């Protein structure tokens, strides 16, 4: 019973950061209409920002969160302005190839700069755990979960209650009409893409503590975020949280209950994508 409870807790805690990365991707796909293969690389940059600030200036990751969000918002905005905007009207194939190219370039630039080593931001509270009855969990995953829930709450509030949020949702629903109503479509795209990158960057800072910073750390999260938004329906922000919980729980159960499960966890997201797609394509035909 304790094992089951522990597995559930592990899954739920992991779901927070998944939902954070996937919400960012859902913004890029839903609002800007770009399938961003470089999304995980934004997380990778966030992780390295956190690592460099920690090693270079001794800044705690909790403070780096804000800085990384700012840096990644700028990176996202520049990426949108310089690279994405020119291909908005191009065929989908070109758009996907472009973001894939950005992903490959960023990964390998990081490889050239930092090498393939994994670097951990080792804070004093990294190994701390909380024990409740028979189950226990680490402080960093718990903190990351709480932060993720808070940020997602803020994101939903922004999209659901503010005028700017309404504008973002209007642009997501229709390409043309918001422009006629006086909404600056280009600026909304810029904002959405910047926000998307900032969310990925914040998740990256969390990864630098819970996992590590390395050139390829983001790529796995691109795939998992895709699995989540495919399950939720591309660009559907509302479905992201339940989908993230399903993926995280599935991974937790596989790693606990499947013999030799450690390696198979990496295959769970594919099963999720495959099942979601098969289901969609059956419903379609």
């Amino acid at each position, binding site marked *: 019973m304790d094992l089951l409870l522990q597995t559930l807790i592990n899954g739920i805690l992991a779901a927070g950061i998944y939902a954070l990365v996937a919400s960012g991707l859902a913004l890029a796909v839903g609002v800007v209409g770009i399938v961003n293969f470089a999304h995980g690389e934004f997380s990778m940059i966030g992780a390295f920002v956190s690592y460099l600030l920690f090693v270079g200036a001794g800044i705690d990751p909790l403070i780096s969160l804000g800085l990384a969000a700012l840096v990644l918002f700028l990176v996202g905005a520049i990426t949108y302005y310089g690279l994405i905007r020119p291909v908005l009207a191009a065929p989908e194939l070109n758009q996907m190839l472009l973001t894939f190219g950005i992903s490959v370039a960023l990964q390998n*630039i990081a490889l050239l700069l930092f090498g393939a080593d994994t670097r951990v931001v080792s804070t004093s509270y990294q190994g701390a755990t909380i024990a409740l009855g028979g189950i226990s969990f680490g402080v960093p995953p718990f903190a990351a979960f709480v932060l993720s829930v808070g940020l997602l709450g803020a994101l939903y509030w922004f999209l659901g209650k503010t005028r700017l949020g309404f504008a973002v949702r209007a642009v997501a629903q229709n390409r043309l009409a918001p422009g006629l109503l006086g909404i600056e479509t280009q600026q909304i795209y810029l904002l959405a893409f910047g926000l998307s990158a900032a969310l990925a960057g914040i998740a990256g800072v969390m990864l630098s503590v819970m996992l590590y910073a390395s050139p390829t750390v983001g790529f796995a999260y691109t795939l998992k975020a895709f699995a989540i938004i495919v399950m939720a329906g591309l660009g559907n922000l509302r479905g992201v949280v339940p989908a993230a919980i399903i993926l995280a729980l599935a991974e937790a159960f596989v790693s606990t209950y499947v013999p030799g499960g450690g390696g198979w966890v990496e295959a769970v997201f594919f099963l999720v994508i495959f099942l979601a797609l098969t289901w969609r394509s059956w419903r379609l035909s």
Partner: protein
Amino acid sequence: MMLAAVLLFLALVLPGLPLGQWRAFALDTAQFAFLISGLALAWDLLARTGQLSLAHGAFFGLGAYAAALSAPALGTVPALLVGGAVAALSSLLLGLATLRLQGMYFAIATLAFSEVMRTLVLKAQFTGGSIGLPVQPAFGGAYPLGGYYLAVAVLVICTLASLLLSRSRLHYAMAATRQGEAVARVLGVPVVRVKLVTFMISAFLAGLAGGVYAMKTLFLSPYDAFGLGRAVEALVIPIFGGLYTTTGPLLGGLIIVSLETWLRLRIGEGYLVVYGVVLVLTILFLPKGLMSLFARRKGARHA
């Protein structure tokens, strides 16, 4: 067409040229370039239906492993065909689930597929797992140039497939599917079947190239055979050279593989950065690839 003929001639006489100490290096690089160009041509076939595949690295790897494992029992050429068939079969399964949907779902699924194939090969016992798999040379090593000419043959097969398909009825079905799926369906094109058939041909050719690659390197590891690098090469070359053409991938393959070989020697790990940069720059500034430069000079002729 001209380029293909010149290239074939050069490929056939290359082993006979007096290159001295450079001969081994030149043959090795040329063999690699032929295989990667073949892979690029295979990728381009599928791109003609408007689908972005990130799984061609995985088909290449599947073909490599299947050929390597079956070669001792079947002999070289049947083993290569087995490699192609295994790749084609996996593409059928992947395609059945995903090709009914919009293009972006397909791209995502292929990316996930290639990552999972690596996990499977790492986990399985008969593939040697993470230790790797030693491979016998082509024809049991009886002909020193056997592997080289097999690579030439693969490139010829891929080129012929590309040329024949661009002159067939299927070509129009593929172009219609790419330009507007709904319209194509109204015009009576069986869109899903066209995509599926093209996907299988494309995967078969990729698997074939992979098999020859295995017999060239004599050793396979999941990280090399299923690395994302191969998938990146497969798509950057046609885009740089010119999409939906036969000459484009051939030309792109020559240039990019030379560049890659040079960079591998210079900077080692991280050489893929060039692929990323070339990909981004080509999409932004030369979306129709190198071929568009020639086409314009000859006066807007259809490629």
